[in-house]
Each structure stands twice: as structure tokens, then as C-alpha cells.
């Protein structure tokens, strides 16, 4: 009897511990959001919202007139991210398909850990490669004066988001029930037809989620783009122009902005815009992933 009581107590304690741990992440997220919101909102006492999102010149420390137009940086961030996805999605899905369907067991056992190690390379190292290796190569390839441009950033971000895309896509391809491909093969379809027409559609929502998580990674990455894209403030004129992303701007200016000034609040407002963007992307990925899991059940 006493033993049972003690066990109940233990159960309750363990239950409470896990509940607090679970709720902690939520509390931290809410806390960060509220802090960000509280520090970002005062920016709009002095900067009209329309100007913040509609103007393209950003120069808070200008000796002539401080300007707070975020448009070029939003465009630059989207440009670099879109470029990264254009490169990473086809390659990522191809590698995932290769790993799950084509590669012999031995190759797979080597390749998968290698892809995962790729995720562990520090972003400064990737950025440095962009500065001294990809930059000059791109300049030669496109006959431009230098390679510090959006394309360079896109390539590096593609490299950095590949592990996420490959690994989750591969998992979802593997989760397609064996019966699907067996049925397809039994009907006389080739392995290529089975992969493209049966397995990929079946795994589509998992792949979409993988792409979205990769996208979130790409939008939020800072150091790499800071080093490789040149950080010019002008509105991007294409993949070969030098661009400044929102993350790079925060990293450049936050250290120097005096506390509790419009500039300081404005940088938090950029942070809020980024937070909302990545949050929306992650939420969308989550919804897609959930729908996929429900269907499989």
C-alpha cells in the first residue's frame, strides 16, 4: 500500500517535470516574441510604417538624413533565398531519391553521415569559402568585376540548407509503404517510373516540409551572407549585384546602435519581420507535415 503511494508520487513528479520541460519551450518562444514586439514597436513612433516597408534606402547613420527604408533588404533576402532554393531543391531531392532508392547499402552508409556532417560546418567557414573561392570563380565565369553578389550567397546558402532537405526528404521517401512500390513494379512499371510517379508523389508532403525547413534555415542565416554578398545597400538589380540581407544588416549595425534610439528600435523591427517570416515558413512546414502523417495513418 505504502509502496503504491510512493510510486504514485513519483509518477506525479515525473509527469510534472515533463510538463514543465514541454511548456518551457513555448514560454521561451512567447517571451522572445513579446520582447521583440515591445522593442520593435517604438520604432514606428518615428518611422511611418509605409515608409519602413515601402522605401528602399536604409542609412540610419547618414550625416545628411537618417533613412529607414527596408524594401531593398526584404527584396535582397527573398532574392538570395529564392536563388538558394532553386539550387538546393532539385539537388536535394535527387540526392534523397538516390540515397533511398538507388544507392547500394554500402554507399548509403557512407554518404548519409557525410551529408549530416555538412550541416555541422560553421557558417563563418562557409562564408570565407565564398569570399576567397566562389567569389573569384563566379567573377571569372560571368565576366563581372567581382563575385561578391547575391548568387554567391545563394550558392553558399544552398550548400547549407542541403543537409536539411536531403535528410528529411530521404526519411519521407523511406516512409512510403513498401506495398506502393511493389504494386507499381508488379504492374510492369520501371524503377524510374515507380520513383517518379509513385514514390515521389506519395512522399510529396514530407518533401515540401523538408524544403520549407531548408528555406527557414536560408532566410535566417547571417554570417555566410554577411561575408559573401558584399552588403551594398542599393536595391538588387539581379543575381549578379551586390546585396545586403536583413540578417546581415542587424549583425552589422546592432553592435554600434546606441540603446533606446530609433535606430536601435528599427533593428529590432527588422528582427520582428524576420521572426514573422521564419515563423510563417516553419508553421506552414508543420501543417504540411501533419497532414502527411495523418494521411499515412
Amino acid at each position: 500500500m505504502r509502496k503504491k503511494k510512493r510510486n504514485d508520487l513519483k509518477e506525479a513528479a515525473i509527469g510534472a517535470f515533463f510538463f514543465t520541460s514541454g511548456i518551457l519551450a513555448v514560454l521561451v518562444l512567447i517571451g522572445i516574441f513579446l520582447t521583440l514586439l515591445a522593442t520593435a514597436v517604438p520604432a514606428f513612433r518615428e518611422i511611418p510604417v509605409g515608409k519602413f516597408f515601402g522605401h528602399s534606402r536604409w542609412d540610419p547613420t547618414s550625416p545628411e538624413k537618417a533613412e529607414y527604408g527596408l524594401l531593398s533588404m526584404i527584396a535582397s533576402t527573398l532574392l538570395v533565398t529564392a536563388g538558394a532554393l532553386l539550387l538546393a531543391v532539385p539537388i536535394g531531392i535527387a540526392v534523397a531519391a538516390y540515397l533511398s532508392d538507388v544507392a547500394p547499402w554500402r554507399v548509403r552508409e557512407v554518404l548519409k553521415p557525410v551529408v549530416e556532417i555538412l550541416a555541422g560546418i560553421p557558417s563563418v567557414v562557409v562564408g570565407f569559402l565564398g569570399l576567397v573561392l566562389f567569389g573569384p570563380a563566379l567573377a571569372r565565369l560571368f565576366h563581372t568585376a567581382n563575385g561578391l553578389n547575391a548568387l554567391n550567397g545563394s550558392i553558399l546558402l544552398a550548400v547549407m540548407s542541403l543537409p536539411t532537405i536531403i535528410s528529411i526528404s530521404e526519411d519521407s521517401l523511406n516512409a512510403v509503404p513498401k506495398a506502393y512500390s511493389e504494386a507499381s513494379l508488379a504492374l510492369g512499371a520501371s524503377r524510374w517510373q515507380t520513383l517518379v510517379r509513385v514514390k515521389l508523389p506519395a512522399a510529396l508532403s514530407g518533401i515540401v516540409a523538408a524544403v520549407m525547413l531548408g528555406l527557414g534555415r536560408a532566410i535566417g542565416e547571417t554570417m555566410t551572407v554577411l561575408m559573401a554578398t558584399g552588403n551594398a545597400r542599393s536595391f538588387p538589380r539581379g543575381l549578379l549585384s551586390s546585396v545586403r540581407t536583413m540578417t546581415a544588416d542587424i549583425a552589422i549595425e546592432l553592435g554600434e546602435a546606441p540603446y533606446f534610439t530609433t535606430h536601435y528600435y528599427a533593428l529590432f523591427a527588422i528582427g520582428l519581420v524576420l521572426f514573422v517570416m521564419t515563423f510563417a515558413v516553419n508553421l506552414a512546414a508543420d501543417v504540411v507535415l501533419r497532414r502527411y502523417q495523418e494521411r499515412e495513418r
Partner: protein
Amino acid sequence: MKRILLAALSLALAGGLLPAAPAGKMIQIKGSDTMVNLVQILAEDYMGKTPGAAIAVLGGGSGTGITGLINRTCDIASHSREWKPKEIEQAWKKGVTPKLFVVAVDGLSIVVNEKNPIDQLTMAQVGALYRGEIKSWKALGGSPKPVSLYGRQSNSGTYVFMQEFVLGNKNYSADMKEMNGNAQIVEGILQDEGAVGYVGVGYLYDENHRIRKGLKVLKISREPNGDGFLPTDRAAVESGAYPVSRPLYLATDGRPKGDAARFLSWIVGPEGQAIVEREGFFTIGGGKYKASNDRNFQ
């Protein structure tokens, strides 16, 4: 950079954990990234020769150092630009009376790729380039290549110095590539035939103390038809004939006392100045900078 931060951190820790050290109080120096290497080396050398001296050096930018002195979070601010009127006002409000000491002279050099045929520019031309008013080297008598501008980021004292001193307090061109440090500007220029950049003289040399291969340092003249000078010409920088030069400061709150005073007078003395020269900066010479230092010591 990391090594320096680490050294500063370990010093800070040692200072905090060992209050029994004979020196008593540690001197905190904070500010200019242009000066952080120089000041760190000066501090290490001084501490090696002076038992009991404890000095911690941190970077962060000239503005960070000046704010630190105003808020009394450091004992000495290092800065590569003048104080802004607003900063002086804030200092007075808080009862801080900054005393400035020129410890070295920095010649900011204007650098292009060695394939660029241009050898000399005027101050006005450099300003026009960086304001984005000149888009092609042809306008300056060079080849018809587009100009690509390399500069520092807005948290750098060098960025502010150029903007005030050369651009005449006007905006930089929005097309300027803003690089994460002097070394990255040099890397950019080495690859880019249309490049122009500004860096401290310390970054021009390779390990054999020769100008790095692939770089060309421009002669700069004050007036359109005046003589041009190189930032590597010591006499020209010390006399002020080289137009893009600036004093580098260490500033204290009020007249320096005790350890800080001894350290400062060691820096402006022969031993400190020998290190200043070895690190690629220019010495303060015997002219106006020495006179103003002497005034502030008294």
C-alpha cells in the same frame, strides 16, 4: 582577433579572480577596432616590463569606446575619430571631462588593383568616387571599367572618418560593398580590377614588409594641381602633407593618474613609439600632437 579577445578575456578573468595582485586595480581599455591590435601589443609589452601592471584591451569600435568612457565602463577609450558634439555634451552631463592623447598617426591609404593605370587622385576625386558620382574609371583618365567601391561597415571608425573627412559628410554610394574588416577589403581589391578601397597602412604589407602583390597604393593630393603623396611616406604623413591621415587617440576621464598616467606617458615615449612604428602606424613626431599631449598630462 579571436586571440586578442581571448587574451583580453583571460586578463579580465585573472584580474577579477586575483584581487591580491599587487597592482590593485586593472586598467580597462575599450574602443577602436583599428587600434585594438596596436594597443594590445603596447599593453603586453608594458606589462612585461612593469611588474604589477594589469591592462585589458577590448575592441568594438570607436563609438563603443567613447560611450564606455561616458558611462564609466572603461578607464581609457581608444578612438580613431574625433568626438561628436553630442558625445561631448553627454560626457559633460555625466561629469566626465575627456582628456585626449594622440598615441599614433594612421595614414588611411586609398588602394586600387595593380592593373588600374591610375596613380594619383585628388581628395575631391576620392570623395566623388565614394559618393557614387563617378561611375567609370574613364572619367578620371583610366580604362573604361566600372568603378566598384569597397568600404567598411557603419560600425567602423574608419567608415565614419572617411565619411566626415573625405566625403564631406555626405552619404556613401548605396552601391559600395561594405566589408567586414580591412583584410576583407584587401581580398576584394586583389580580385577586382575596377576596385577602389580604403584601408589602414598596416594592412598594405606582406610578411616581408613589402606592399602586397596585386595592390597599388594611390598618391593623394589635397588640391587639383597639387603634389600627390603616398601614405607610406613617413615624412609626408607626420607633416600632414599626406591629406588622408588622422591621429589615433587614447582618452581618459580627467587628467590621468597613477597606472593609467604611467602607461600613457610610456606609450608616447621612445619605447612605445618604437612599437607604434613597428606595427605599421606613424609616430606622433615632435610637433603639434606632442604639444597637445604635454598640455593634457599637466
